[in-house]
């Protein structure tokens, strides 16, 4: 269970998150929806300990991870697929995975399992990360995060700029992760994609909690979507 308890955070003097709370259960996909600049990426950075919290706390399976130094947070079992991929450039595909495997000392079998999910990466192990195609880079960003065998996974726009077949592949992986009991916090721009995969949706506006509801209810009533992410 990943839990954010009234977290406030920001950059320097500019506060972005204001007492934001949410929780994701194991095997659940919670989607964070909001306009550009609402604070979705900031939320993920704050959870990862990459931004200091002004107040509030973050818990993972009963452990207060917001008290840990930043590099200990992933070691507690938190995987992160950042917006814009942010692979380790200059390193090969295999080395990018190696960094993920080292995070929590995952065994070799984890690497094989991950590569089974993304067979295209297996053919490109010695290729430098920055020379992969956009879709392959996104796969590597996912694979790298899965190498730490996460209990909870933060996905920031994992299908940004991908063609439909690639989006399908990524979505299937996400569905399989849910089945295996990972708690997934997902940020997505495409509302249709969100509604087909998410269990619950939390709206975020100006760094504050908006409504929370089940994806099913939202499918029937689009008015909230228009209110929070419409133009």
């Amino acid at each position, binding site marked *: 269970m990943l839990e954010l308890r009234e977290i406030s955070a920001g950059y320097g003097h500019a506060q972005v998150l204001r007492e934001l709370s949410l929780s994701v259960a194991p095997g659940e996909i919670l989607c964070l929806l909001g306009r550009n600049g609402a604070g979705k990426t900031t939320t993920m*950075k704050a959870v990862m300990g990459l931004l200091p919290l002004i107040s509030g706390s973050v818990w993972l399976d009963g452990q207060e991870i917001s008290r840990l130094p930043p*590099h200990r947070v992933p070691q507690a079992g938190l995987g992160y697929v950042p917006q814009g991929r942010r692979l380790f450039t200059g*390193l090969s595909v295999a080395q990018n995975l190696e960094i993920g495997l080292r995070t929590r000392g995952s065994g070799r079998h984890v690497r094989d399992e991950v590569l089974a999910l993304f067979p295209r990466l297996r053919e490109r192990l010695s290729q430098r990360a920055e020379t992969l195609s956009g879709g392959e880079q996104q796969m590597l960003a996912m694979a790298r995060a899965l190498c730490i065998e996460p209990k909870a996974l933060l996905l920031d726009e994992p299908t940004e700029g991908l063609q439909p077949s690639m989006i399908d592949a990524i979505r299937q992986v996400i569905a399989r992760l849910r089945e295996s009991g990972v708690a997934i916090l997902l940020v997505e721009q495409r509302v249709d994609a969100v509604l087909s995969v998410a269990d619950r949706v939390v709206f975020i506006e100006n760094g504050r909690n908006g409504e929370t509801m089940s994806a099913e209810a939202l499918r029937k009533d689009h008015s909230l979507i228009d209110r929070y992410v419409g133009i």
Partner: protein
Amino acid sequence: MDLGPYILLATLEGAVTAAVLALTAVGLSLVFGVMRVVNIAHGEFFMLGAVIAWYVANGLSGHPATGFFAALIIAPLLVGVLAMAVDMTILKRLNYDPERTIVATIGLLYILQQGALMTYGPEARPVEAPFNTRIALPWPEWGETGLSFYYPWGLSTTSYKLAVIAAAALVLLGVWGMMTRTKLGLVMRATQADREMALAFGIPVERVYAMVFGIGAGLAALAAVLIVPIQQAHYLMGADPLLLSFIVVIIGGLGSLPGTVVAAIIIGLSDGIISVFFSPTLAKILATLLVGLVLVFRPQGLFGTRAA
């Protein structure tokens, strides 16, 4: 002496300069590449290496080789530990901000320099080379009897100078191996690529930074120990290596280790050759001019991949 042997002699002198310069500049480049810190005090770590070498060599009695080889280990270690302390107490507190760390390392430059003046004093002092055999070099001659060799008067080097070149090459290979083949190197390169993502994957970035700053300073100190039997230790000796290292790092491409080594060889050799035939001042002028040209026409450096 004919022109040919004369050029060989100049090249050998240049190769010694290049070897020492490559070590120093790789230290600077490593720190800039991984930490994005421009270390203005890098030349003072070089100077400290030489000064410590003098203290060690003088403190130990017996064969000069004993003192020298002890210095070769002790000086880089001490300087490396000092640099790690500087990283943890000063640079970390500044959050590795690019501008503020420049100001901080300028301050450090004066502290180290004046500290050396107050303790070691204003004299230049030599450290004896561990071995120093003069080696006359042959030059080929095509005569009536076919190819033969003779020993032109003045064409010679010393066993120590050759050893400096070999030692620098070995250490550089070691650094290359560390960066490409070890876990520490992998972690350092990941941190260089993206500091935030390194943290998000469990890399203790602060410890990596301390390590890199220590290794960078240690390389400068090692270079200084190698050169001090040829050049003498002096509290102001850090200025030239700092300037030349910056020239080399800019020409080679900021943060690129192979580029740094190639640029060090170009600058070192041309420095040696131009100094022998013309004057050392002209050599510095031309090197600075080359930097200007590189900055105008290829700002990312000869081997750099992205504009810094």
